[in-house]
């Protein structure tokens, strides 16, 4: 799918809401097939992934290696249980791959391997690596005079890793406006809430202090997500000379009422009863989201 920069009207908003809903369901289903998964952090970044993959990024579903494609780095690699469904839905691999997620011998599992999974630009899993990889990809674009963008998605807890800040420093030093560093700021990590364990706020002010073109928006409002991402691209197109950083304020487990904002759902499994409740919760959630799009969309 080539980049779609048509107007973000009500119809577009509703189209993306439907896609986000389908992907949330496929994510839960994948965790059920696999027995368990990092559901919380996958749900928190699903709206960001939806806008990126179904509107913003230049990609070709028939050719994942398309040279001028935009690059994506899932620095919070454990969100693969949410990212793999995107790649399947995109057409890079059959849904059968999700049915054996995490099982012995499967191509896809908890963290994705770029040498095995089509459409994955970089293998990730160990936190604090993605920004440096993204800087490399963005520099490669500059060396080759390519106009592709590189998008890196980090977790907020991940920002505890010092290597991220080495990467951000260098992105600013090298004036990589073709790099967009995104944080899925769901405010939870494995052992507790980020603010209680090792606070990383104020994230937007930190990015500003590191010389980034910074935005901070609601990471569950598709319109705001789109606006920030389009602004990043426009900033680059108009000759901006800083990397863009976008802090997306999100909730862990967004979409499922009993998971939402609960750090204990960093990783988990769903029995039949919980699965039924989770899907029912998604029904209500999707309805609310569509109502908002109908009301606020233009």
């Amino acid at each position, binding site marked *: 799918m080539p980049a779609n920069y048509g107007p973000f009207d009500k119809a577009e908003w509703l189209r993306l809401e439907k896609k986000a809903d389908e992907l949330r369901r496929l994510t839960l289903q994948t965790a059920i097939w696999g027995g368990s998964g990092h559901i919380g952090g996958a749900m928190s970044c699903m709206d960001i992934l939806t806008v990126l993959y179904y509107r913003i990024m230049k990609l070709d579903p028939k050719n994942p290696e398309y040279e001028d494609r935009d*690059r994506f780095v899932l620095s919070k690699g454990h969100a693969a249980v949410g990212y793999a469904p995107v790649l399947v839905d995109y057409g890079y691999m059959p849904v059968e791959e999700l049915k054996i997620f995490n099982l012995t011998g499967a191509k896809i599992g908890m963290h994705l*391997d*770029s*040498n095995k999974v089509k459409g994955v*630009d*970089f*293998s990730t*899993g*160990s936190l*604090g*690596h993605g*920004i*440096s*990889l*993204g*800087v*490399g*990809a*963005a*520099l*490669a*674009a500059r*060396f*080759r005079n390519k106009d592709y963008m590189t998008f890196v998605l980090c977790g907020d807890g991940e920002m505890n890793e010092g*290597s991220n800040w*080495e*990467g951000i*420093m*260098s992105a600013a*030093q*090298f004036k990589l406006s073709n790099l967009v560093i995104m944080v899925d700021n769901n405010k939870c990590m494995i052992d507790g809430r980020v603010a209680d364990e090792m606070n990383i706020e104020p994230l937007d002010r930190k990015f500003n202090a590191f010389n980034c073109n910074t935005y901070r928006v609601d990471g569950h409002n598709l319109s705001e997500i789109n606006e920030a991402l389009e602004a990043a691209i426009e900033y680059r197109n108009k000759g901006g000379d800083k990397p863009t950083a976008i802090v997306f304020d999100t909730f862990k487990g967004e979409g499922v009422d009993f998971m939402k904002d609960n750090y204990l759902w960093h990783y988990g499994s769903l029995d039949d009863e919980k699965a039924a409740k989770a899907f029912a919760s998604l029904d209500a959630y999707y309805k609310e989201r569509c109502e908002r799009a109908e009301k606020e969309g233009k």
Partner: protein
Amino acid sequence: MGGMAYTSIEAEQLTTAEYYGKALHDLGEKHADVIALTADLAKSTKIAPFVKAFPERLINVGIAEQNMFGIAAGLAKNGFVPYASTFSIFAAARSLDQIHTDICYQNVPVKILASHAGTSFGQAGSTHHAIIDLAVARSLPNMTVMCPADGAEAYKLVLASYDIPGPVYIRINRGFDAVVYGGGPDSVNFVWDKADELKKGRDATFIGIGAGVYQALQAANMLEYDCDIHARVLNMHTLKPIDKEAIIRAIDETGCIVTVEDHVLQGGLGSAVAEVIAEYGRPCKFKMLGHDNSFSTIGLQEDLLTIAGIDANGVAAAAADLLGVKLGGRDNWEDEY
């Protein structure tokens, strides 16, 4: 003379790192996809010729080695062949996670130039010695591990590294190495995955790597003069994949092996050779020389090698012990009176 070895008296005009810089320049001239990366050590790792010729192809990340190797992987995933230089200890220890995951797991052609290896930055002390890096690098899947014996060989080896698929760890010393290949790069018979036999012999085999090669060669000369013992000397410049055939020939034809490395005994050259000997299953007298579970003191490298028993005298003594001969038989003190 800080960091200059006594061997500089008979050294090449270029240090080993300067040979690396020359090779990097020549690679850059030939291949547009070669990019140089450094973490505030462009000067120390001697890549000036490349920087002068191709300033737009240098990426200096400041003092941030982890970021450097991550960026290198990002470039390599997009079609470039990055040469990332830093001190060995900051590559193998500080940046191991990036080298493990971003470079080796993704199996991308990042060439890691790890300088100031072993105790070659002797006076800087153990924070800047790298005596664990071969063990680390050797354990990484997909990684090729190389270590030249001197500057001339470093030149040939770095040129060869471009064509070796996947990641390559190249370990070189600081300053001047004692000269093993006296005729410069043209005198180096370099086949990247074959040990170089520097001296023929049937009584024992000395296998050296890096600074150990010169010591092994000197020891072989001493034994030949002193006790008519003829030791074969192998330069094992490529530690992984190791030249098993050369080791098996050494077992079969000499039955006695001494390994010499400026590295701990745990996991380096000696261990790699021991694995081949053990699997081959034929008896072979064997001694490993290296740092034995200890950090080195500070000092000049040649002194530190002597203290650790990794110098020519140490090699000769180990061989004499294995072979049951007495050293010093040809000493003649008459002219001292």
